[in-house]
C-alpha cells in the first residue's frame, strides 16, 4: 500500500509570523500569541487532510527547532548558543548537558494540540532520534556519547508510550545526523551497531509504527546495517541519496520516500515523481512489497506556507497515482 504524510515542522503561515514578531516586540502578550498558535494549528491540520494526507500531524508550529522541547524542558540540560542547522541557513539552540538528564513530565504530548487533531484520521508525531539529539548536543556530563544516547533513548521510549496512549498510531524519529556526511565522515559498523541497540531501547514495549527518517545525507551510507534496525520503516532523502546504490539491497521493511523537495520552492510535476518512485519501489522490493510512504525529504518549514501547501497536494497526487500501480 502507498500512503503519504509530512516529515517535520510545517512553516508558520504569514499571519502567525506577524503575530510572533509582534510578540517579540512585546506588542502582544503570551495569551494572545497562544491563541494565534491554536488558530493557525487548525489551519495547517485542515490543509493536511484537505490535501488527502493519510497521517496528520499538528504541524509543530510552536516548535522552535526539532530539539527545543527537550532542550528547554529536560532537567540536566541548559539552552546553548545558536548553531547552524546542518547545511541550511537556519539555526537551532545547542543543548548543553550539565547533569543527569531527566524529564519532569511528558513533553511532546503536552505541547501537541491533541484536541485539534481529527478523531477520524490517523495521527503522526515526530521526535528527534537519540543519535541526532546526542550528536547535536554538547555533553559535559556523561562519560561518553553512548551512555548519553542510551539515557536519551529511555526518555524517547517513555515519550512514544505516552503518545501511543494519547491516540497516535505513528511516530517518526528524525535522524539527520546519522547520514550527514560531515558529522560522521568515518562512520561504520561499530557505530551503526550502537545505533541499532539504542533504537531497540527507544521502541521497546511500544506498538505504534515507528519510522527512522533520515535526511540531509545519503541513506546508502548506512546500508546494509540500517535494514536490521528495529523500526518499521526507513525514511530516505532522495535529494541526497544515490538511487543506484539503494537498488543493490533487498528491503524487507517499509520505506518513506522523501521525494518532494522541501528545500526547493519549485513545485514538482507529479508525473516525474511517479516515474522515479516506481523505479525505486520495483528495484528495492525483490519479492514482497512493504508499506511505502510518499513524503517530503525533510521539514516543509524551509518554504513559505503557500508553497508548502502546494507541495502537500503533490504528495497526495503522487500517492494516488502510485496507488493505481501498487494497489
Amino acid at each position, binding site marked *: 500500500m502507498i500512503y503519504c504524510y509530512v516529515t517535520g515542522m510545517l512553516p508558520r503561515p*504569514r499571519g502567525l509570523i506577524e503575530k510572533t*514578531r509582534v510578540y517579540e516586540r512585546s506588542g502582544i502578550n503570551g495569551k494572545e500569541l497562544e491563541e494565534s498558535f491554536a488558530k493557525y494549528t487548525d489551519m495547517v491540520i485542515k490543509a493536511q487532510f484537505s490535501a488527502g494526507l493519510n497521517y496528520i500531524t499538528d504541524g509543530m508550529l510552536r516548535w522552535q527547532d526539532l530539539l527545543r522541547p527537550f532542550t528547554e524542558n529536560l532537567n540536566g540540560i541548559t539552552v546553548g548558543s545558536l548553531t547552524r542547522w546542518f547545511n541550511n541557513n537556519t539555526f537551532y*539552540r545547542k543543548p548543553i548537558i550539565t547533569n543527569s538528564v531527566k524529564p519532569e513530565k511528558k513533553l511532546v504530548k503536552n505541547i501537541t494540540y491533541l484536541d485539534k487533531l481529527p478523531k477520524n484520521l490517523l495521527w503522526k508525531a515526530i521526535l528527534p532520534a537519540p543519535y541526532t539529539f546526542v550528536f547535536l548536543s554538547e555533553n559535559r556530563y556523561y562519560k561518553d556519547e553512548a551512555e548519553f544516547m542510551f539515557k536519551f533513548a529511555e526518555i524517547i521510549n517513555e515519550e512514544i508510550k505516552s503518545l501511543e496512549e494519547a491516540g497516535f498510531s505513528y511516530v517518526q524519529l528524525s535522524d539527520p545526523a546519522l547520514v550527514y556526511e*560531515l558529522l560522521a565522515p568515518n562512520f561504520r559498523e561499530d557505530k551503526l551497531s550502537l545505533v541499532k541497540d539504542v533504537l531497540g531501547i527507544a521502541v521497546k514495549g511500544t506498538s505504534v509504527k515507528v519510522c527512522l527518517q533520515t535526511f540531509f545525507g545519503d541513506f546508502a551510507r548506512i546500508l546494509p546495517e540500517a535494514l536490521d534496525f528495529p523500526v518499521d520503516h526507513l525514511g530516505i532523502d532522495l535529494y541526497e541519496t544515490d538511487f543506484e546504490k539503494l537498488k543493490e539491497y533487498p528491503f524487507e521493511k517499509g520505506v518513506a520516500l522523501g521525494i518532494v523537495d522541501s528545500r*526547493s520552492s*519549485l513545485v514538482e*510535476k507529479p508525473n516525474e515523481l511517479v516515474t522515479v518512485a516506481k523505479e525505486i519501489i520495483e528495484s528495492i522490493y525483490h519479492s514482497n512489497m512493504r508499506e511505502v510512504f510518499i513524503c517530503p525529504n525533510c521539514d516543509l518549514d524551509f518554504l513559505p506556507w503557500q*508553497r508548502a501547501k502546494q507541495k502537500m497536494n503533490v504528495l497526495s497526487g503522487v500517492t494516488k497515482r502510485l496507488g493505481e500501480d501498487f494497489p
Partner: protein
Amino acid sequence: MNKLLPTQEIGSLAKPQWRTKGYRGKMLSREEIAEAVNWGGKLGIKNLEELVKLLSEGDSANRKRVVLEWSAKYALRFLETAGLDIVFDGEQFRSEMYKHIIRKIAGFKFLGYVRSFDYRYFNKAACIDKPKYTRSIYLDEFMFTKENAEREIKVPFTGAYTLVEWTFNEHYEKKLSGKIKDFGKGKFKAKREFLFDLIKEVIRPEISKLVDAGAKWIQIDEPAATTNPTVEEMDLFVESFNETVKGYNCTFSLHNCYSHYEVLARYACELRNCSQLSLEFANRDSILAGTGDTRTGYKEIKLFEENGFHGNYGLGVVDVHTNFVEPPELVRDRILHAVKIVGDPGRIYVSTDCGLRTRTWEISFRKLKNMVSGAELARRVLK
C-alpha cells in the same frame, strides 16, 4: 597601506531612527531629530540646520535620496572620528545585504518569509528567470562615499555564492527537471548554472562599473561560504570567487563569519587575487587579557597558516554581538597573539568581527575607539 596594523570596518552600521523613518517618509519626533543633531555635533557635521529642515518636511522622492546621503555622511564621519584607517558608509544606502541586491536584479521574485531561527524570519526570493543586470547596485553609494570620505575606502559587495545559497533556484531547476535522473546531481548542476550566470550577467558588470569609477578595493562578503562544507561545494565556492574577481585591476578581499574555519582554511590558498581574509574571531574568544592559551578564539589562524595561506588577515578583535566594550588592552593582546602565530605584523589588519549593525551607535563608537587604541598599543609593543 604603509601603516602597521591598519584599522578597518567590515560593513554595516545600525541605521539611526531619523534615517529609517526619514527614508520611509514618516514624521519624526522631536527626540529623533534631537538625536540627529546631537550626533551631528559630536561628529562635526556641517550645515545641520539643513538636515533638521529636511527631516521636518513632508515626504518626497528627493527627501529619500537626501536622507540616505546625510546618513551615509554621518556614518563616514562616525568611522573616521573613531579613528579607522579604512572606511565605507556603514551601508546606509542599503536595506540589508541580501534584499538590497536582489531587488535590483531582474529574474527574481520574493516568495515570502521563512524561518531563520525562533521568531526570526527572512524574506526569501526565488530565481525565476535568467538573472539580468538592469541598474547599478552599489555604484551610487560608492560614488557618494568616494567623494565624501577622508580615508581609504573599501566597498563591501555581497558575493554570488551567498546570494545563490540564500535563494530558491526555480529557473534552473525547472530547466533541468526530468533531464537528470539523480535528483541531487540535478540540483547541483542547476545551482552551478545559476551561480555562473549570476556572476557573468550581474556581479561582474557591477564590479566593472565600480572599478571604472575608481574603486580600488572590493570586499566580497560570503557568509554562506562554508554552509555546505563538502569538497564539491567548497570547490564550487572557490571557483565562483576566482571567476568573480579575475582580470580586474583592483584589490579584493573575502569576508566570512560564523562559519567552519577548519573547512575554509583548507581552501583559502586556492582563492586567487584575494589579498585579505577578514574573519570573525572575537566572538569565539575569551575576554581575559593575555596572549597564548587564553586566546581560545584565535586557534584557527594556525590552520590557515598550516594550509599555506600567505595573504593578509582582517583580524576580528571586536565582537559585534555583545555590548561588552573590549578594553584596548584586550584588543592589543588579541593582535599580539595573532602576530605571534603569523610571524609578520604586516599581514594583520585590525577589524571588527563583522558589521556592527546590531549595536547602537553609542556602543559601536566606544568599541571602535577602543579598537583603534588597542591597535596603537600593539604598535608600540611591536616597535
